């Protein structure tokens, strides 16, 4: 469906700005902004993954941070074993630690996807409030699981000695890292645009709007929801791998329910069921945090009313204000 010209100009403008951001802010002597932008993009990615199941599939997961945090831990744990030269597993198969992004990041995605499959098999048998509660419960279980892992820092978390090794890219360089994250986010957005317009996306939206009817039409809805849930888990795991690299530190707080809440806020603020919504949501949320937290510790006091206003007056989120003539599912 054709977007209005204004919206397309906005999207291309934002893309150009994102591509030109590092030299731009370095020219202004504001190098720290590259880090802020990277963080925004990582949260845009995890928001994009939640948006797939929340915005298109109608599954209100209140435990999305579990997949995000698990992905971060996979990278950190593999890196620690590599640093100390201790194998992660010796039986039944030998698994060595690694610093390689090409191994650790896909591993983070796989672990998060498998977690999502296991949690989804149970949680997706419920719906509505029960689904919210059960996803929250699973996320809290994982949260306490990581707290109990003494070997990996327990409550204090785990530091990385270096960022992952990514071939020709030097991830220790914030600008290299930024462009890699930007590339991955753009890839994710593009894949999601294809996916939601394809048959699979139609099934998801159909389930969101009227699951009973979908079953009567002949769709085995459970397996489609589960597949979407696992895909969202994998993407959140990748975002987790990225955040572990950015902060060079992971802790159980990456998985706690407040983090799950923040991811939900990013999606709702930006616009559920809109491909670019979570990007707008992440930018708005993290920039507000950046600005307001410099001003007061109680910045949530300001964010709260803003969220109320958006929910009341811009039901489609920030993106619906930008893309006024756009499609609800675009």
């Amino acid at each position, binding site marked *: 469906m054709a977007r209005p010209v204004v919206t397309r100009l906005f999207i291309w403008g934002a893309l150009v700005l994102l591509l030109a951001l590092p030299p731009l802010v370095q020219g202004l002597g504001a190098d720290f902004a590259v880090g802020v932008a990277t963080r925004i993009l990582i949260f845009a990615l995890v928001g994009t993954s939640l948006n797939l199941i929340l915005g298109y599939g109608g599954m209100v997961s209140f435990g999305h941070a579990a997949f995000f945090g698990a992905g971060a831990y996979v990278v950190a744990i593999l890196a620690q074993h590599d640093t100390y030269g201790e194998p992660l597993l010796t039986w039944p198969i030998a698994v060595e630690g690694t610093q390689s992004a090409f191994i650790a990041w896909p591993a983070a995605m796989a672990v998060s996807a498998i977690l999502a499959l296991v949690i989804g098999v149970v949680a997706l048998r419920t719906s509505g409030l029960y689904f919210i509660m059960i996803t929250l419960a699973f996320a809290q279980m994982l949260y306490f699981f990581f707290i109990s892992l003494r070997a990996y820092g327990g409550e204090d978390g785990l530091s990385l000695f270096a960022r992952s090794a990514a071939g020709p890219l030097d991830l220790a360089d914030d600008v290299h890292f930024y462009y890699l994250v930007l590339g991955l986010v753009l890839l994710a957005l593009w894949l999601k645009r294809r996916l939601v317009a*394809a048959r699979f996306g139609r*099934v998801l939206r159909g389930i969101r709007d009227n699951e*009973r*009817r979908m*079953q*009567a*039409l*002949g769709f*085995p809805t459970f397996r489609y929801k589960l597949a979407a849930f696992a895909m969202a888990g994998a993407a959140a795991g990748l975002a987790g791998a990225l955040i572990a690299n950015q902060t060079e530190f992971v802790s159980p707080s990456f998985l706690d329910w407040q983090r799950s809440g923040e991811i939900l806020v990013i999606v709702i603020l930006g616009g559920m069921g809109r491909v670019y919504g979570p990007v707008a949501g992440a930018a708005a949320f993290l920039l507000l945090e950046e600005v307001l937290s410099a001003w007061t510790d109680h910045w949530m006091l300001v964010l709260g009313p803003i969220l109320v206003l958006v929910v009341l007056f811009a039901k489609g989120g920030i993106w619906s204000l930008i893309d006024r003539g756009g499609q*609800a599912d675009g």
Partner: protein
Amino acid sequence: MADALLEVEGLTKAFGAVVACDAVALALREGEVHAVIGPNGAGKTTLLGQLAGEIQPDAGRIRFAGEDVTGLPAHARAGRGLARSFQITSLFPRFSALDNVALAVQAQAGHSFRFWRPAARETALIAPAREALARVGLAERAAVPAAALAHGEQRQLEIAMALASRPRLLLLDEPTAGMGREDSGRMIALLAALKAEGRMTILLIEHDMDAVFALADRITVLVYGQVIATGAPEEIRANAEVRRAYLGKETAA
């Protein structure tokens, strides 16, 4: 009955103390329009829910096209050619009329683990959907979101979706519910046209006696969950028990 497309035996379903379906037996011949009538609360919709697979019976057996489908979930029965429409319009309100029907086509077009090609440009989905819309007279309204259609049009869309899945057996739950005279006349004409094509078997649950007597080859009367009579329309009309239990009351009202 040897040539029965759908055979129901001893179907029983109770909700607490209320027996909504009490040892119901029913046999549908291939190609017939079979109406189930009965006063409010007779268990008609519960019966249909069990046939469609949404409600599990407490006892009894349902055979469809020679296969026992009693334990199968709704989506698996739909896959075998059993389609239903809903008494309370059940559509995808944000989807256009065309996309509602295209979704019904997609349901019968293999699995939907397809992530790449835009479904809106798949002729294999769109062409049969347009055809089904045209058959119910909604071709002009293809692009309108289902939520924006008039009530009568939404009911037509329901039928189009059921048709699009090319069912062997169509379960219609009060297709004229909530319609004015004119709309329900149009619906009856549409169903009569489908019947004349003779390609599918229809089980019709209906309150509107004009519709029932205009369409049905045979009629089953359900009262308090029990079948009190089955027969051709004229037999049912003449049946004293039926008149007492149902038709008489309706006339008196």
